[in-house]
């Protein structure tokens, strides 16, 4: 595996009227890896994807995909990429198969080639049974899969996934994660945008955090978690009377940090890794403290931003979100 950069963006800027969507974004992705672009709504994630996929031209800065400039060699770039937008971008009046075959024809796969590729993709994405149904009748998860399949018709080297799991229920989300992992094991490079640290952590080799059109952090998931405080273990004892004893145990699990009651009846404590869960379970069981809730959380996006940018920017973010 070489460490060749297949996506390289330097100083991307884009204004829409008075709105500064991007104010100088740098990105770098090595071939065969996944970059997670993490940020809240309105941070500029979609604008980045639209520039890299040649749908928008930047006001300043430049970007190259597989060595081709996204503005000057747009046509070459388009032969290298697959794009899956935030909203399903297939034709709802066509069947799943017709959609995939249309894109096959447009990508010069020929009639037989398009048909073969469509069959492969329908099978891979578990849509064979629905292949001849109009896409309008698909469920949200199916449509998302068809949309992703459509972006893979030309077997692109670089795949852009703009919030691939937004609006999907948790089990469908895991399915989508598996697909992304398969893509990478097949040698593709993936740039995915997400609002969930959990998702970036599950999939990405590196994470770029953007806010207000600027990169505010770039790191591996481990590095980022070290900065923003890693995992939190939450426990709700069945009996409120057990709270003090449970708190003592949790403090031990986290090697000394005092447990806080973050909500009524729920204790939380920062922990180093997953093994804390097992430890907590066995100690609580030994102390005969029944619990109704036990969970391990990554910091939420809000907490990530709170840590990275401080409270001031956090308030600003909420204004943007409104």
């Amino acid at each position, binding site marked *: 595996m070489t460490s060749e950069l297949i996506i390289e963006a330097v100083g991307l800027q884009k204004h829409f009227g008075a709105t500064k969507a991007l104010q100088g974004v740098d990105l770098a992705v090595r071939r065969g890896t996944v970059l997670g672009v993490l940020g809240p709504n309105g941070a500029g994630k979609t604008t980045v994807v639209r520039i890299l996929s040649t749908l928008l031209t930047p006001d300043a800065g430049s970007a190259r995909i597989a060595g081709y400039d996204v503005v000057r060699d747009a046509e070459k770039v388009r032969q290298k990429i697959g794009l899956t937008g935030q909203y399903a971008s*297939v034709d709802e009046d066509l069947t799943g198969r017709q959609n995939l075959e249309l894109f096959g024809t447009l990508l010069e796969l020929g009639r037989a080639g398009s048909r073969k590729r469509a069959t492969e993709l329908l099978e891979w994405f578990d849509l064979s049974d629905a292949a001849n149904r109009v896409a309008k009748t698909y469920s949200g998860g199916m449509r998302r899969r068809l949309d992703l399949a459509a972006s893979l018709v030309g077997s692109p080297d670089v795949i852009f996934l703009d919030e691939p799991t937004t609006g999907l229920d948790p089990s469908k989300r895991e399915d989508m994660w598996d697909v992304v992992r398969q893509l990478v094991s097949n040698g593709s490079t993936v740039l995915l945008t997400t609002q969930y640290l959990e998702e970036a952590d599950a999939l990405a080799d590196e994470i770029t955090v953007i806010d207000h059109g600027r990169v505010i952090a770039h790191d591996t998931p481990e590095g980022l978690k070290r900065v923003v405080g890693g995992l939190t273990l939450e426990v709700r004892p069945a009996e409120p009377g057990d709270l003090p004893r449970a708190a003592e145990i949790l403090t031990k699990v986290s090697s000394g940090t005092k447990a806080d009651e973050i909500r009524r009846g729920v204790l939380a404590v920062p922990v180093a890794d997953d093994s804390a869960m097992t430890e907590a379970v066995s100690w609580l069981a030994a102390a005969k403290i029944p619990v109704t809730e036990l969970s391990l959380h990554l910091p939420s996006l809000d907490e990530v931003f709170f840590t990275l940018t401080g409270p001031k920017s956090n308030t600003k973010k909420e204004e943007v979100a409104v």
Partner: protein
Amino acid sequence: MVSLAIAPSPRPLRLVRHSFALAKRSLIKTWRTPEALIDVTLQPVLFLVLFVYIFGGAISGNTHDYLQFLLPGILAQTIATGCISIGVNLNTDMEKGIFDRFRSLPIPRAAPLLGAVLGDIVRYVIVTAVTVGFGYILGFRVTTNFFEALAGCALAVLFALCLSWMPVFVGMKVRTPGAVQGMMFALILPLSFASSVFVSPTTLPGWMQAFVKVNPLTHLVGAMRGLFLGTPIGNHIWWTLAWCAGFVVVFMPLALRAYRKKV
């Protein structure tokens, strides 16, 4: 994953092939939503019945003479209003992600628009068949010959294909589908009434006659009357073709530019 070798073929060939693939797409869409054909099926029928039987006696003395006179006019009018829907449809389509995907593919940028225009040929053939067929039921008769009449129908379809670049352009420029509809209707309505579609323009005031004389629909209707009924055809065919060329030369580049700029 091994990248498939996408062999680039000469540009014009690709444009044709991609446009046909996309025309097939809009045909499938038309097939799936037959109610979208109302403007090219029900409308000419209604107009023929209403105009022939309400105004026929008053204008021509009897309904049959007026039907002979009116049918080419109704065909021209419905073919002109039938063009509006392409602008509305494209405007709706642009809102959906499918156009983003088209733009992210290595295909000529003109292909999606060209495909939509070509796909509408079917609509124009339907409107021609319905109008002439229903006219025949009411008693309309071609008095020239089959081939001249066929040439008249072909001219109408060609006119529609060229005119449709105007609504395509408006569809790229205007924000909502409703606005496309409204704006195009405001353009087509005066064109179809201030013409020789419904009455012979000799009774109109002079300033309006001046407009009627240059109105493309007047020329289209004049050419069709000549080809269907053997009336003096003058330069109507040439003027119609000139207008067709004009629509394409002006509105196709404008539409493509607007499409490229649309974010």
